[in-house]
């Protein structure tokens, strides 16, 4: 197991060197810029809008990182042949896959943590100076701890997306992997609709395909609690736990698949 750590650390280091964390600067500029503009336009609603915008941007930035680094994690090493000297070291191919996954997850975690801190900081400055009675009338406090629930759900979603990207990366080109991963992500957003496909379509074949997709593809919409959190609707702990288990099951299955495919692969 000891070989997983060094591979994960190498992935993290590469993302730092490849300036992946520059997106945080963009995130900060976006958030601060938006708060200045919105703060001048609307009174009271600005906190809600910034929460909305901040969480949406966190999710989108994370998605870009998960997909565009994820699809290259394995294929780049194979294409450039840096995998040759690496796999001649005491490391098994499943450990290599696990290390790559853990490294990208760590990158995402650090990114998400920084974005969350930035969001709370902007919210703090927005709410500062607004009298308590006015704040009391809001759906949720400015520095609502429930925001962390939304961020945690984004992280779970990204963990699944990363596993999907890594899975495709073990046997197809980065371009195809990106298309497949985006496809899975988009279809996964409308997963609940697939279940009710028979209500709008008559073709039995189309209904069967939609049902199969519903059961096989992850339902990404269940991780989206952004709206509920922004409007102060409680997100039960049990739902969070069930979502975590749901994500873990998909990640485990995808990583297992990636390991099986990669373990048999010839590097011509």
């Amino acid at each position, binding site marked *: 197991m000891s070989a997983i750590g060094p591979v994960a650390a190498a992935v993290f280091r590469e993302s730092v060197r490849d300036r992946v964390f520059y997106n945080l600067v963009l995130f900060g500029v976006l958030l601060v810029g938006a708060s200045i503009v919105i703060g001048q336009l609307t009174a009271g609603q600005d906190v809600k809008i910034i929460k909305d915008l901040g969480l949406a941007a966190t999710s989108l930035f994370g998605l870009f990182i998960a997909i565009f680094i994820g699809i290259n994690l394995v294929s780049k090493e194979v294409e450039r042949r840096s995998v040759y000297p690496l796999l001649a070291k*005491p490391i098994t191919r499943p450990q290599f896959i696990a290390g790559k996954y853990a490294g990208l997850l760590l990158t995402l975690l650090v990114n998400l943590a920084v974005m969350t801190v930035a969001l709370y900081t902007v919210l703090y400055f927005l709410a500062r100076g607004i009298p308590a009675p006015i704040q009391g009338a809001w759906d949720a406090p400015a520095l609502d701890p429930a925001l962390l629930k939304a961020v945690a759900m984004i992280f779970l979603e990204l963990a699944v997306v990363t596993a999907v990207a890594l899975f495709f990366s073990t046997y197809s080109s980065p371009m195809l992997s990106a298309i497949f991963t985006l496809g899975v992500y988009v279809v996964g957003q409308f997963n609940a609709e697939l279940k009710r496909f028979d209500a709008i379509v008559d073709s039995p074949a189309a209904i069967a395909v939609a049902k199969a997709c519903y059961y096989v593809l992850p339902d990404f919409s269940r991780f989206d609690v952004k709206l509920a959190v922004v409007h102060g609707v409680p997100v039960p702990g049990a739902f969070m736990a069930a979502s975590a288990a749901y994500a873990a099951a998909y990640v485990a299955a995808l990583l297992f698949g990636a390991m099986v495919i990669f373990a048999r692969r010839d590097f011509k």
Partner: protein
Amino acid sequence: MTAAIRTRELSKDYLVGFWRPRPYRALDRLSIDVAPGDVFGFLGPNGAGKTTTLKLLMQLVFPTSGEAEILGRPLGDVSIRRRIGYLPENPYFYDHLTAEELLDYYGRLFGQSAADRRQRVGKTLDRLGIGAERRLPLRKFSKGMLQRVGLAQALLNDPEVVFLDEPMSGLDPLGRRDVRALILELRDQGRTIFFSSHILSDAEALCTRVAIVAKGRLAASGTLADLKEFAIQGWELVMAGVPPEALERVRARARRVVTIGGDRYAIDLPPDGRPEELLRELAAAGATPVSLNPLRETLEDVFVRRVAEMGEGARS
């Protein structure tokens, strides 16, 4: 005694063609034994199956049939990789890392402690002549320097068996000399070295034993002296200032005498032509020796002939 490397009927087919994939045999029933402490030259023209063999031994590709062992253990045994080093052909490493960081990363995979890694990385880079450049990102390295980094990573764990795929490729004459010296140093330390090359002079200077592969098949193996292809087929003696009366005697013993400008003559003697006697006689007559070389068939000639023979064999 356990062989350092042993292969039995090792074969590899690749599927070629997109619509109708058909097998292409890259390696055909290779059986070799490499004894501990050997410097084993694995020789053959491009496309002979040398890199495929090394990839099979490193488990980068899996055999279609046959088996192989390193240090008495099957290839799938990951623990064996603590005791071996591997330099791939035209190695590529991570652009964003420095040589130091790369070796540190590999050291972590070997489970070496931070202090151990610092010491080993420094020592190994010194040994390969990588100085202050070790702190530059690898994207700034020339091909020759990358080859040195490749050798450094192959030696990081003090391996018992070292696999080198075309270690001289891309190196200038000084680099080649350094690699030769390194291989001899490793041999003197009792390590086993298995290297592939398509250049005979590398093998002549280094190898205790060689195997020649062509078209995926083992064409010959043994010591270079044992291989009849490389037996001495004559001598070429070059002398300057040969007096005319002596030249007559030389012509009687030589297969051919060629004037090569000035007063120099190239004298082609048969294998039993006793060049040392003739050299002594001519020196006594006032001539000056310039060079004396054995004449052998070149590796290229052997390749061409073997490949042609195999082609005929396949047709018949």
